[in-house]
Structure formats: structure tokens, C-alpha cells
């Protein structure tokens, strides 16, 4: 909503208040003023000129040499506009003039002819092209014949104005009108509102003798008023009217259309003007459209209607889409003499639906869908009649044709000052509350310690006590509200154990060298189930914006890999990312997918990169496995977690493992399959994804310290030659089992595959630590135990002892 402060001045006194201060006051009281547009900013030395003669430039086809009377003198101005002609009053920018955008007018020579200025279009004065009347859209603007040469053109054009652009919240539809704004500003400034005086002389003829009205869709159209105005002379509107419309961002057309738009802006009540003769049937019928019915709207688009859309008809065919747009067949044109003015209350939901279905939003529909003031429907029609009589020479027929079953009652709200103050935490006196409501022109009565309020129908947003609390508080000033904290018993806040452990997981992974990523939950159908630990029917959007964001993910890895590729493509060779987030599986009883928290990670590139000391190491399976082992250790789950060789789509068949918690698969880790790597433009890349919900649901055991060893431990090493397929893990299990209680620890300290062992074999070396917390072990004990370990290895694995 653009509010011209010049126009506003007609209804409320804002003199002496700078527009910027007014804007600040309005913003602080509740309606945000988005921008302040000073229309005369940068404009100087621009006057009315009279073109006394206009001749073609001898050297240039498109230029005209004009002698222009600019008051004191007549000067020569060269003009290139096609519509310039002798006898016109025009806008002349004289040497020294400044135009928007910093352009300066200087005396110049154009193809040998002197030009003492410039004849301007409205656009050159900063007026938006789409608000300039079509007749002047492509050329200079022509001023009325009575404009006086040499006088200031800016005030004549209403450009000595400041516009406030309101960013209205949906509840404040009342401020979609100049009168509504006047009420608001009046309340803020404690000023009265001056309403327009509606006076005109009506004809002896009666409207009802000219027009019949039938409303068949009463629910959607509870009130309809038609006024008939005869002998209208369609012409250009007076300049002041056009100026107001342009200030509001509306393009002037002709006086009839301009008047309906003016009243819409003034009262917030949309009006429509029909050409009475073109209606042809002397009848208006409001009804729902029949499926497939057609109408060509004012914008010359033929539209096929759907059943249920509200239409205005002449009894035979639609002549307007109610509240949305008029029809071309009944449009007012230059030859129109009799006009029917429609003012109606169309049900907001009906207008919203029709407007959305046909994809048309107009100044009318945006107001109607929010609900106009029921008590202004008739008044707006009268205002239009008055202006048609004053500005278009019209003869207004007596009375109107109307249907009215609209509820125009105001809502009564009773509340006590104590209630208001308790909600606000304030101590505003009752008479102060009364005064605020009165400033807002909201009828209020104080009786028995209660405020009895009749919320005016122009304020549809006032329905309950809290609405009035807001009115009182915002005008009293939110700055006056004290600062307190909630009273009452306080409970300790905190995180759930899941949330706390999720933070722990993040911190651990970051300390292990991974950066946290956040990727999109929506993905393509093709990627939605890639790498998923568990698949279920996908959750799909009804109306996706693109195929790439049409389905919810079932794995975090596709987008993490996408981010990895993004980085690698930008020459960031080493990428280490992790993400915690939800995957979405199937549909539960409540209609929602099961949302499961996962954690996933991707690493590629160099893990160790200490170049000047030649320490470089590529990522490998065991880097990722080490990170996961550390995670399990951090969560106190090491004893419960095992790894088994596995195969998964998209992962390297020889370098993939399932991660099991208490024997159940909770995750996967492995190398990206070389074909996937190629597809994604990645080098060797390792990934993991773990069901975080399952992982964090498992509690760690109580942390009780173990005595720091008081007796020495003893180490023995074993080197074995085994088949390449033999898993170190199973050998370690054998060792552990045979080693029993005394065997404190087994670690792998060497792996060799090469020339020194037979083809198909490998050498593995283990270091075993024997220890007893209560005493020093003897050599014999250790030897006995160690021999058992060796025997077990020989028996159960076929391992050959080496060296």
C-alpha cells in the first residue's frame, strides 16, 4: 500500500510533522513503513511550458524544433518525442534542472540547433512507467490547457509529495484504504478524521426503473448495490485525480474507471463500472458459474469458468468475475453515456478461490478476500455517484438497486482494566485505556469498572479481549512495558540424553577431523534410496518445485557425496564431512513417515598432509574405521560393537563392513565403489552411515575406575603366516579365547604381503600382553599360557609360526 502524504492530508492533519517522523511513529505503533519515497527528490527547475510552434529539424527526421513559452520568455527546445505539437502545455526542464538519477540539463546544440532545456515525459520525472496513462506512455506528458506557463510543474503534477510504502500484516486490511490509514494516523497523532462529504443532486428518475437485480448466490454475495448514472461524458480525469492514482501506483484510464479506483483506494471498497447499454438486458443476476462457461475479461483473455465461481451476469451471460475482474463485453468506453456502479460484499473465501483458480489478483480481489467493511459498501457507491456527477457531468438516478442480507453488527467486547494490566504486566489507568480507544475512534464505555467496547466493522481484526489489549498496548507504547521474568516454580532445564549424546557425537567427530555439513532433506527420486541402510516406501511431495527436490531422503550419503564432489571440483582435494540428520521411511499409522536420526561421514584425499617433512598419507578404510572405533569408545560401546565383512550397492565389494551393535546391524562403512567414484568425479573415497537413534539408545555402562596397574605386565610377540583370506579379526578371537583372563591385550603390529611369503599367503604379527592385577606373573606361567595360544592358533586356523 502506497500512502501519499499529500492525499492523506485531506483526511487528517499531519502538518508540522516531517514524513520520516510520521513514518517512524506509524511503524512503532504497528504498521511497518517499509520505504519513504520523496517524489520530488532531485527534481529542480521544472516548469510548465507552452509550445508556441513546432517544426521539423532540418538535419534530423526525428527531432522537432519547438519554441516554448516558459513564462518570462520563449526559448527554443529541441524535442524528439513523437507526440509533441504546437499548442500543448508541456513539462519543461530548463538549463540547471536536475532529474532523478542525477541527470543535469544544460544548454546544448543538437545537430546545429540550440536547445535550451528538455521537454519531459513523466517517466523522466521518476514516475513509474506502468502508472502513466497509456496516451502518454510512449512520449512527453501533456498538461491541461489551463496550466500557466512558467509555474512550477512539480506541484501541478502532485510530485511535491512523499509516499509512505506500508508493509501491511494480513490482519490490518483496514489500512488498505486512505480512510483506514487516516484513522490510524489520527489515533497516533490524537487528531480527528475528516470524512469526505457526500452531496449531490439526484435525478427525478429512479434507478430501479432502469435496472433489475437478482442475487441467486446469497451466501457468497450477501450484499449488492447498483447505482445508475446517466449522461456521463467519458474523458480524461482532472489532473489532481490522476495524480492521486499515480501516487498510489494505479494507472489512470478515463474519468469513470478512475473514479472507481479512487473510491477503492479511499474507502477500501472495490467498485465496478458497467456500460449500461452494453449490458443490454437491463438486468443483473449474481450466480455461480456453470462448468465450462466462458468470459473474456478486461485484459482480453478468454477464460473458461468452473462451477461454483461467482459471476455477475446480465441474465444471459457473465459480464464480470465477481470481485476479481470485469468482462470486456460490458466495459466502459469512450462512447459510454450511462454507467452502472457496482458495490458489493463478496464472501472472502469465494473471491480468494476464484482469484486463485483463474490466477488473477487485483486491487479489488486482495481487499475483498480479506473482508471489506460491511458498513462502507453503500457509502462507497454513493461516493462514486457523487464524483461521477461532479467530474463526469453525470446525472445520478435516485436511489439504488440493492440486495442486502449482510450482517453489519459490530462485535461487543467487555474487559476489565485489571485483565489488561495483568496480561501486560503494567499499571495503565482505566481512563488512559478509554482515551486510547477513543483516539482510535473505537466506541467505548466505562461502566462498573469494565470497558464495554463495540469494535467497529472497519476493524475486522478486533474480535476478542486480547485484540484490544494489543490496541491499548501498542498506542500506550511497547517501550513502557517493564522487563520482568516469569514468576513461579522453576525447573532445571537441559538436554535429553539423546540430545546430549548427539552433541557428544558431533564434538567427537570434529575433534577427529571432520567438518559438519548440513544438506537438503529433499532429493531426487533416483538418489532417495542410494546407500540407504534400510529402505521403505519414499515420502513424495504432491507438487515438487523440481525433480531434484521431490522426495525425502532415506540416506544422508548422496548429498554428502554431492558436497564432496562440489569441493573436489574446486580443487579442495581433501574433504572430510559429516552430517547428523533425519531420514524418512515409509508411512506410520499417523500418516507421517518414520523419522530416524542418522550420522554419516565422507572422507577423501590426504589424511596426513605434512608436506615439508614428506609425511603424506591418503585416506583408507582404516582411517574411517579408526574414527568409528573412537566414536564407539567415546560412547562406551566398544565391547558391544563388531564389524563384519559385507557388500552394499555402491560400495567396494572387498572393502565394506557392516557395523553391528549387540549383533544387530546399525551401520555401514566402506570405500565408495570405483564406478560410483568415477560417476561422482571422486578419487578414493570412504563413507559411513550409522543409525544414530539405535546407537544412542544404547546406554554406556557406569564409569568406575580400574586400579592403575601395580605389577608389571609381560609381552610376547607372534608372527604367523596365513592364507590371504584369513581375517586378522578371527585370529585375534582365537588368541583372546586361548589367552584367557591373563591375556590383557592383543594388537596387530605388522602385516606383510610380498615376495618373502608364498603366493596367496600373508604374514601377520601380533603383540600379546599378559598381566595379572594382583601379582607379578612368573615366566613359566606366561610360557604355559602362550604355548596354549600357539597351539590354538595352529589347530583352529592352520597358521604357521614364522621366524
Amino acid at each position, binding site marked *: 500500500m502506497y500512502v501519499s502524504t499529500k492525499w492523506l492530508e485531506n483526511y487528517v492533519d499531519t502538518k508540522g510533522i516531517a514524513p520520516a517522523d510520521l513514518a517512524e511513529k506509524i511503524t512503532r505503533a504497528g504498521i511497518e513503513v517499509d520505504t519513504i519515497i520523496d517524489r520530488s527528490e532531485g527534481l529542480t527547475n521544472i516548469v510548465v511550458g507552452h509550445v508556441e510552434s513546432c517544426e521539423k529539424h532540418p538535419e534530423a527526421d526525428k527531432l522537432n524544433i519547438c519554441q516554448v513559452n516558459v513564462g518570462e520568455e520563449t526559448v527554443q527546445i529541441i524535442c524528439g518525442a513523437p507526440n509533441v505539437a504546437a499548442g500543448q502545455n508541456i513539462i519543461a526542464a530548463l538549463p540547471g534542472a536536475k532529474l532523478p538519477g542525477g541527470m543535469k540539463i544544460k544548454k546544448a546544440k543538437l545537430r546545429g540547433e540550440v536547445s535550451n532545456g528538455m521537454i519531459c515525459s513523466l517517466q523522466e520525472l521518476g514516475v513509474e512507467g506502468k502508472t502513466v496513462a497509456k496516451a502518454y506512455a510512449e512520449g512527453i506528458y501533456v498538461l491541461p490547457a489551463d496550466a500557466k506557463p512558467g509555474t512550477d510543474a512539480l506541484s501541478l503534477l502532485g510530485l511535491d509529495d512523499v509516499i509512505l510504502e506500508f508493509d501491511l*500484516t494480513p490482519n490490518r486490511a483496514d489500512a488498505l484504504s486512505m480512510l483506514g490509514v487516516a484513522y490510524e494516523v489520527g489515533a497516533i497523532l490524537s487528531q480527528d478524521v475528516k470524512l469526505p462529504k457526500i452531496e449531490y443532486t439526484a435525478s427525478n428518475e429512479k434507478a430501479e426503473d432502469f435496472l433489475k437485480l437478482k442475487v441467486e448466490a446469497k451466501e457468497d454475495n450477501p450484499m449488492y448495490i447498483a447505482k445508475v448514472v446517466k449522461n456521463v461524458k467519458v474523458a480524461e480525469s482532472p489532473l489532481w485525480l490522476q495524480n492521486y492514482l499515480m501516487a498510489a501506483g494505479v494507472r489512470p484510464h478515463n474519468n469513470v474507471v478512475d473514479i472507481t479506483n479512487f473510491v477503492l483506494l479511499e474507502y477500501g471498497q472495490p467498485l465496478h463500472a458497467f456500460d449500461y447499454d452494453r449490458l443490454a438486458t437491463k438486468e443483473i443476476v449474481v450466480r455461480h458459474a456453470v462448468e465450462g462457461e466462458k468470459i473474456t475479461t478486461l485484459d482480453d483473455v478468454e477464460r473458461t469458468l468452473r462451477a461454483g465461481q461467482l459471476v455477475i451476469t446480465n441474465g444471459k451471460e457473465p459480464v464480470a468475475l465477481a470481485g476479481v475482474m470485469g468482462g470486456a463485453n460490458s466495459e466502459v468506453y469512450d462512447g459510454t453515456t450511462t454507467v452502472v456502479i457496482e458495490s458489493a460484499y463478496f464472501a472472502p473465501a469465494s473471491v480468494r478461490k476464484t482469484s486463485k483458480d483463474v490466477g488473477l489478483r487485483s486491487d479489488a480481489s486482495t481487499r475483498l478476500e480479506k473482508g471489506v467493511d460491511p458498513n462502507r459498501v453503500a457509502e462507497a457507491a454513493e461516493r462514486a455517484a457523487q464524483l461521477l456527477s461532479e467530474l463526469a457531468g453525470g446525472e445520478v438516478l435516485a436511489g439504488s438497486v440493492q440486495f442486502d442480507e449482510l450482517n453489519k453488527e459490530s462485535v461487543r467486547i467487555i474487559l476489565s482494566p485489571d485483565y489488561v494490566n495483568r496480561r501486560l504486566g503494567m499499571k495503565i489507568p482505566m481512563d488512559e485505556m478509554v482515551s486510547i480507544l477513543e483516539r482510535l475512534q473505537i466506541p467505548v464505555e466505562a461502566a462498573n469498572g469494565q470497558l464495554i467496547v463495540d469494535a467497529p466493522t472497519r476493524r475486522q481484526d478486533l474480535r476478542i479481549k486480547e485484540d484490544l489489549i494489543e490496541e491499548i498496548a501498542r498506542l500506550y507504547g*511497547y517501550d513502557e512495558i517493564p522487563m520482568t521474568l516469569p514468576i513461579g516454580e522453576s525447573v532445571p532445564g537441559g538436554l535429553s540424553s539423546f540430545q546430549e549424546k548427539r552433541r557428544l557425537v558431533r564434538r567427537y567427530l570434529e575433534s577427529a577431523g571432520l567438518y559438519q555439513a548440513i544438506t537438503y*532433506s529433499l532429493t531426487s527420486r533416483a538418489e532417495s534410496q542410494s546407500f540407504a541402510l534400510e529402505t521403505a516406501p519414499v515420502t513424495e*511431495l504432491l507438487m515438487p518445485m523440481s525433480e531434484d527436490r521431490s522426495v525425502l531422503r532415506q540416506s544422508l550419503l548422496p548429498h554428502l557425496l554431492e*558436497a564432496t564432489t562440489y*569441493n573436489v571440483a574446486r580443487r579442495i582435494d581433501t574433504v572430510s564431512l559429516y552430517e547428523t540428520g533425519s531420514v524418512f521411511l515409509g508411512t506410520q499409522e499417523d500418516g507421517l513417515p518414520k523419522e530416524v536420526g542418522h550420522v554419516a561421514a565422507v572422507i577423501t584425499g590426504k*589424511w596426513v598432509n605434512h608436506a615439508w617433512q614428506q609425511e603424506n598419507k591418503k585416506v583408507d578404510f582404516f582411517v574411517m574405521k579408526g574414527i568409528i572405533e573412537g566414536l564407539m569408545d567415546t560412547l562406551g560401546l566398544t565391547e558391544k560393537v563388531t564389524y563384519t565383512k559385507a557388500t552394499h550397492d555402491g560400495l567396494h565389494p572387498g572393502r565394506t563392513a557392516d557395523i553391528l551393535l549387540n549383533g544387530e546391524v546399525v551401520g555401514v562403512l566402506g570405500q565408495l565403489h570405483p564406478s560410483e567414484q568415477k560417476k561422482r568425479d571422486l578419487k578414493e573415497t570412504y563413507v559411513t552411515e550409522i543409525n544414530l537413534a539405535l546407537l544412542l539408545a544404547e546406554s554406556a555402562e557406569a564409569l568406575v575406575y580400574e586400579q592403575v596397574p601395580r605389577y608389571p605386565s609381560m609381552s610376547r610377540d607372534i608372527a604367523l603366516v596365513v592364507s590371504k583370506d584369513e581375517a586378522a579379526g578371527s585370529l585375534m578371537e582365537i588368541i583372546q579365547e586361548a589367552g584367557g583372563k591373563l591375556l590383557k591385550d592383543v594388537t596387530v603390529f605388522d602385516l606383510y604381503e610380498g615376495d618373502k611369503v608364498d603366493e596367496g599367503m600373508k604374514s601377520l604379527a601380533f603383540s600379546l600382553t599378559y598381566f595379572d592385577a594382583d601379582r607379578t606373573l612368573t615366566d613359566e606361567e606366561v610360557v604355559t599360557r602362550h604355548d596354549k595360544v600357539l597351539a590354538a592358533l595352529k589347530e583352529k586356523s592352520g597358521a604357521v609360526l614364522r621366524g
Partner: protein
Amino acid sequence: MEQQLEQLKQEALQKIEDAPSVKELNDVRVAYLGKKGPITDLLKGMGKLPAEERPKMGALVNVVRETVTTSLEEKMELLEQQAVNEKLEKETIDITLPGRPVKLGNHHPLTRVVEDIEDFFISMGYEVAEGPEVEQDYYNFEALNLPKGHPARDMQDSFYITEDVLLRTHTSPVQARTMAAKKGEPIKIICPGKVYRRDSDDATHSHQFTQIEGLVVGEDIRMSDLKGTLALFAKKMFGEEREIRLRPSFFPFTEPSVEMDISCFKCGGSGCNVCKKTGWIEILGSGMVHPNVLEMAGYDPTVFTGFAFGMGPERIAMLKYGVEDIRHFFTNDMRFISQFNRTEV
């Protein structure tokens, strides 16, 4: 003989002093104190002396030997020290070379902002509540005073799955769910999470973004409590000198509704590009819980009142760190994320 002895001593001491290295010093030791050295010779030659002179001469020889030995030892220590110093000198490294990098990652900036906010409210006695990202229309809209057909819930603005299920458009359904679950108990929660809107991604819009909302419900919760809480929050989050101001606004689930501005943390209020010359920055929306919302969740609005507030971590991060494009948060460029690796205090 005494003279001879004195000469020997001077000679030895001079050679000790002149010895340039441990090796030469050892040669001196062997030459003078060794079994074939002159001092030994002298001692051997003592047998030729008269018996009464022997003790005197013996003592004299010993003094000379000790003097030479002491001098030798002192010199030896000195030379050894020198040798060590030389060795250390050779071991000197260029300490300006970079150290071996410690492999470290860090939080995503949005997590950093969210955790800061969570931690403040946890310290004020709030719990962190989370809920599903795919929601029922009821919790996302209806329970929040946005009945079907309400203009603010346009199908065009939301990602629907079915007519009754959609990707949540805000984290407010967590509030509705919590109220429904707490059945009349007082509530103090903070709800962070991902939300979704039908927006084309550009510098200022993202179809997925983050919200964090708070809700307090209790007996006689006042608007002044909202203001006091938010003022403390603003100081904690944006600096001790921050002032707040409330401006009237509109949200369907609160009445009265306000937007909160904080005094600009860049210019302190004098006006700059961050605050668009106004001195104030809009940070969050809030208000008193609408009686309809309380009632739908089973709270008697004549007894219970509450306040709610909500903000966007993306916006806060963009303001705080000067990030100009919201898409940075979801591109996961390592060069972006890795910048958020250090403390701000």
C-alpha cells in the same frame, strides 16, 4: 731438580691451555702424566736422591701432578662444553617452519548459533524439544489458530505430501505437540529444527532453513516477562550493551504479536549498512500465546497464559558473520565451514 720440576709444570700448563681439542688434551695428559711421562720419570728418579730429600721432593712432585691434573680436568670440562655447544649449534632447526597439522573439524555455523541459543535458554530453565519434520496439517496449522482456508496457509507456500501431511513450515508444531502432551502442566521449551517452504533458492531464500522457537506457558505469564526474557537473551547473544525494542506485528498464533529489534551491534545504533541506517536490527518475532491456541491444546486461557518467540539462525548467522548469501549454509564448501573454527570471545 726443583727448578726442573717448576719448568715441567709451566710447560704442562701451557700445553693444556693451548690444547685446542679433547684429543690434543688427552695427548698432553699421556705426555705428562702417563707412565712414560716426565713426571713419572721424575718419581722413578727419586731413588737417586738422598733419603732425607725424598719426602720433600715427593710432596713437591705430587703438588705439581695435582696442579697439572686439576688444570687438565678444568680444561677437559671446558672443551667438552664447547663440543656440546658445537653439536647443539649443528642441531639448530628453523623454528619458523610450520608445525605438523592437527586434524580438526568444526561445527557448521548454524549449529554454532543454535547451540548458543539453546545453551542460553537451558541456563534459564528451558528444555530442548524436538518434533517431526514431516507434520500433520493439524499441528502445523490448525492447532496454531490457522484453520483450513486461512489465507496465511496457502498451498503454494508449503510442501504437501498429502492433503493432511506436509513438511513443517515452522517449528511451531513442536509447541503444539508439547502443549498437547503436557496436558495443563507449565511449559518452558526451546524448539530448534529444520523447516521447509516453497521458495526458489536464491541469495535470501532457501526451501529448507532453520528455526528456533521458544514457548513458556504458566499461570499469569505477562508480556513484561516476554520482554524481560528477550532483553536478557539479546544481551547474552549479541553483547551486554544491546538494547531491545518491540514493534507491533501480526502472527496468527499470538496476540498481541510483536517483532523484536536489537540496537545494531555493528554501529551501536548510530546507523550503518548492517542496520540499513536505522540503528536497529530485526531479530525475532514473538507474542503472547493466542487464547485459541491454548484452548485447543487443553489449557484454560483464563488461567494459563504464555509467550512464544521464534527466530531464524540463518539470519542471525548472516548478520553476525556478514554472510551475504543464504545458500552458503547448504553448499557445504569446506572453505566456508572451516572458517567457523574458533571462539568469538
